[in-house]
Each structure stands twice: as structure tokens, then as C-alpha cells.
């Protein structure tokens, strides 16, 4: 990303630009297939969502009339929507923050040369090998109070968790869900960072070592700055995926107890498929999209400034 920014910032000479314009346009051929593919598949469903958001729609998507902002007013006056928004914030920040805090050191260790490294790498990536829905199901069993293996193990270690019901109150249920969320996001993030680490030229470290830098100094001065574009990608994408992540919460607690673990995506799903309010759900989806958009614009703007400053 950084390299292209400098490309954008330094157009190669005003005079040369005109005659080469047509050539530049023909370069669009390179990106057209990707645009065509995603527009075909995602474009229409997005249009449907936008349309339903401003319409009065029955539970099968049949339009009954124009609603304007009515659906938006409905969701903003629903206390559960507001509650879910706050919980989404907690969920996203905790999961993404936790993931980055775990993934960066783990990736740095995995990038070192040690015995059994490829086994270690495979193990770290394992949570990613299972579909989220299945992970959530397995964890629901693991934390089951009476028959789950977590309490079994804790009791065997002599800890007082015999029959402890982990999912029975919203706080401990949410905490468990966040931990599972971190666990499944770590492999993806480690992979991105590991990819970034392998791209740092060894010569940089050699030069630093010759200048007498310690391992810690090279980590701070070389590794972390060189990683920053990869971290940016990891954070933006993780925020988007975690914000929209549905199966963990849906399968483990269904948003309960008392909506205490509902996030926006489970709220929207309930509106659409349990309550038959496709229009309200569509409005909720649009609001979710706008939230993510605001975040991304702000975040990219801030990190762009920082990286040009540095």
C-alpha cells in the first residue's frame, strides 16, 4: 500500500501524461474482470437491501409500499438495537484488539528458526481449519456446565469449577464468546503478519547488526515499522469480519440471556428471519454498513497521515 501511495503522490511528469492517457485507460482491462465478477454477484443483493430499507415489505420481500425513513426510525427507537450497538462495539474492539495483541508476538516467534517450527505453525493455524459454526458448536459443548470438558479439566486441576454454568450470565457468556472470537481470528492475522515478516529483507537486519543494534532495537526499528502496512490490512479486515461475525454468538447463546450478547448482526438476523421484518432488517444492515464505512474512512485516514509523517 505504501509503495502505491508514493506512486499516486508522484505522477511522472505532467507533460508525459496526455499522450499516455489512452494507454492508462487500456490498463483498466486488468481490473475489469474483478469488477465484473463482484458487481454481478454482490451488486444486485446490495441493491435489494437498499430498496427494502426504504420500503414497507412483507416477510417474503414483497413490497407493500414506500416507507422512506420509517424503518430507520423504527430501529433507532428500539432499545435492543441501541444495546446491540454498544455490545457490537465491545465485541469488535475486544476481539480485534485481543487478536492483534496475541498474533504479533506469535508471528514473530513463528518467524524465528527453531526446531519443530512447521509443526508449531500448523497448530497455530488449526482453529482456522474448522468452520466458525462448527467451532462455536464444539465450544458450546466444551463450556457446558455439567458435561463439558472445560469444567472437567479445571476440576481435575483442583479448581472449584465443578458444574460451573459459563453461559448462564451475559457477562461470562460474552467473555467466552470474545475469547473464541480471538482464537478463530488469530490464524488469519498471524498469516498476514507472517507474510509481512518474510518480506522484510534480511539485509536490513544484517546492516543493523553491524551497526551494533540489539535484537530488541531491530524489532522496534525495523520489524514493527515494516509490518505496519500489513497490520493496517489485518486490523481493517478483522474489524470488518468480526463486526459482521454471526455464528459464534448465534450458536453459543443466540444473543441471550436477555439480549445481553446480541450484536447488530444477530439483531438483524432475528428481525429478518424470526420476526419476518425484512424491511427493518435491511435498514439495520444499511446502518451497519455506514458504521463500518465511517470506521474504515477514519482509520485509513489516520494511519495514512501517520505513515506519511513517519
Amino acid at each position: 500500500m505504501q509503495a502505491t501511495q508514493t506512486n499516486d503522490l508522484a505522477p511522472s511528469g505532467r507533460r508525459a501524461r496526455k499522450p499516455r492517457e489512452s494507454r492508462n485507460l487500456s490498463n483498466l482491462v486488468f481490473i475489469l474482470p474483478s469488477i465484473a465478477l463482484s458487481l454481478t454477484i454482490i451488486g444486485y443483493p446490495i441493491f435489494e437491501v437498499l430498496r427494502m430499507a426504504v420500503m414497507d415489505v412483507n416477510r417474503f420481500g414483497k413490497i407493500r409500499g414506500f416507507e422512506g425513513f420509517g424503518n430507520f426510525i423504527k430501529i433507532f427507537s428500539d432499545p435492543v438495537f441501541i444495546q446491540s450497538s454498544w455490545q457490537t462495539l465491545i465485541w469488535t474492539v475486544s476481539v480485534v484488539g485481543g487478536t492483534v495483541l496475541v498474533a504479533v508476538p506469535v508471528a514473530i516467534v513463528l518467524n524465528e528458526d527453531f526446531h519443530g517450527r512447521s509443526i508449531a505453525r500448523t497448530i497455530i493455524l488449526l482453529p482456522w481449519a474448522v468452520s466458525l459454526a462448527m467451532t462455536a458448536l464444539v465450544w458450546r459443548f466444551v463450556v457446558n456446565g455439567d458435561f463439558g470438558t472445560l469444567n472437567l479439566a479445571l476440576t481435575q486441576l483442583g479448581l472449584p469449577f465443578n458444574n460451573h454454568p459459563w453461559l448462564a450470565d451475559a457477562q461470562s457468556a460474552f467473555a467466552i464468546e470474545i475469547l473464541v472470537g480471538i482464537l478463530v481470528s488469530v490464524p488469519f492475522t498471524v498469516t498476514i503478519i507472517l507474510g509481512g515478516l518474510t518480506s522484510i529483507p534480511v539485509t536490513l537486519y544484517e546492516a543493523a547488526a553491524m551497526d551494533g543494534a540489539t535484537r530488541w532495537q531491530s524489532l522496534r526499528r525495523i520489524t514493527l515499522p515494516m509490518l505496519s502496512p500489513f497490520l493496517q490490512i489485518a486490523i481493517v479486515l478483522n474489524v470488518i469480519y468480526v463486526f459482521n461475525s454471526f455464528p459464534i454468538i448465534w450458536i453459543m447463546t443466540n444473543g441471550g440471556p436477555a439480549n445481553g450478547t446480541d450484536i447488530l448482526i444477530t439483531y438483524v438476523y432475528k428481525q429478518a428471519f424470526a420476526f419476518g421484518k425484512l424491511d427493518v432488517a435491511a435498514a439495520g444492515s444499511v446502518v451497519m454498513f455506514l458504521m463500518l464505512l465511517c470506521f474504515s474512512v477514519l482509520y485509513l485516514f489516520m494511519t495514512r497521515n501517520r505513515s506519511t509523517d513517519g
Partner: protein
Amino acid sequence: MSSKAKFSLLCWGALMPLMVVILFPYATMLSTALKRKDEIFQFEISWLPDGLYLGNFVELFVNRGFGQAIFNSIYISVGATLVSLLVALPAAYALSRLKLPGKSTFRTYLLITQMISPIVLIVGLFRLFAYLGMINDLNALVFAHSAFYMAFAVWMLQSYFDTIPKDLEEAAWMDGASRFASFRRVFLPLCLPGIAVTSLFTFVNSWNEYAMALTILRDGSLQTAPVRIAFLTGTLYETEWNIIMAATLIATLPVAIVFASIQSYLIRGLSLGGVK
């Protein structure tokens, strides 16, 4: 003890807490998958099954068509990986190396395609594929998955391409190679680790995707592994944990194999850096 051995111990020690948390559910899966149904909910529970019972695995493949589901998943995941690479490679190359009007618009567009969860698009997606006559068509999933996961592929690849010094290609042009030849001979080998990681991402996401596969593939013989698992077990009154755990273990295998095999690319990437 050699210094590398000591260092290795240190590394494993540092990774240990995370590994315990990662492996714990696997231990649970293994323990439960080897139990008979009536061993799971007992007054006294234990890790070890009464005997080595493999009936759950047999049941999965013989009576519940899980082999077919694994095959469907592989078809879709490989297809989605190929299609998204096919469209993402040129796009990423253009973003990294070529002059292009509207570059930042395109980048924003890619980001936007990621911001809406497939779950909120389900109704629209289903209507679209129904219109195209592609309900119950594995290829529908290939295209749907590649459309959703392509953006990341472009992003990731571009990020890799940017780290490859331009002068290498320029040197190749000066040696008289055509732009395409230099792309193929110099550029492509250098970005193989990036391509590997990108493929891994697409493959795994497609392998694990649930909502779209559930909605578009209705016929039992076309279902993917995650959907099959949910279908096998989701009766109204009871969850068959022994079968779920066995199926989840098996669904993990192909992906674990891909992980293990793709690591060589990552390591080669490292040594290439050393060569430069």
C-alpha cells in the same frame, strides 16, 4: 544442550499457552468422537471413552454421505480459489505496477464489497441465483465465494507486489525481455509466497463458509461439509454430539493438510529474501 535447542524450547514455551487453548477443543472432539452416544451424558464424565469406538466415523461415511459432502467442499473451495486468483492477479498487478485512472476508487470499491455480510444479502443472493437458474449448482458457490473473497486476494497480492523491488523487472526489460516475460520469469516467482498465502485464505474461507452454501445448495447430495454437519445433527430434540465431533475432526483434515503443505512457500519466501 545446543543453543538452537535452548532457543527452540524458549519458542515452544512462549507459544504454549495459546497452543493449549487451540488444542483443547481438539482433545474434546477426539474424546467425544470415540464415545458411544450413551457415554456422553453420564453421571460421571471422563475424558477416555470406554473403548475405542469408531462407529461414529463409519456412520458418517456409510449412512450419512459425508464423503460426498467433503468432495463438494473441495470442488467449491478449489474452484473459488482459482477463480479469485484469476481475477485478482491482474488487478493486483495493475494496482501495484501500472498507471490506472481511478485507482483509489477501485480500492475503496473492493473494501466496500467486504463491508456487507453475506448474511444480510441472503435474500438478494438467493433471488439472483434463482433467476440465473443456478440454485443447486456447485458453480454458483464457486462464483459467489470468489466474488466475496476476491477483494482480499487483490489487497493481499498488491501488498506483496509492492514489496518486490521494481528494478528487478526493469533490469529484465533492459535485458530485452518483454513485459509479460519479465512478469512471468522475474516477478511471478518472487511473489509465490504471496500467492500461496492468498490461495490459503480463499480456500479456507470457502471451505468454511456456511450461510451461502446453506441457502443456495438445497439438494442433500450437493451440500458442503459444514452444512452437512449441521444437517446431520440438527434434529429438533437432540444434538448428536458424537457425530458432530467426528465430522468436525474429519472436516479439519483437508485444511490441515493444505496448511502443512503451503508452509514451504512461506519459508522459501524467507530464503529468497536472504538471496537478494
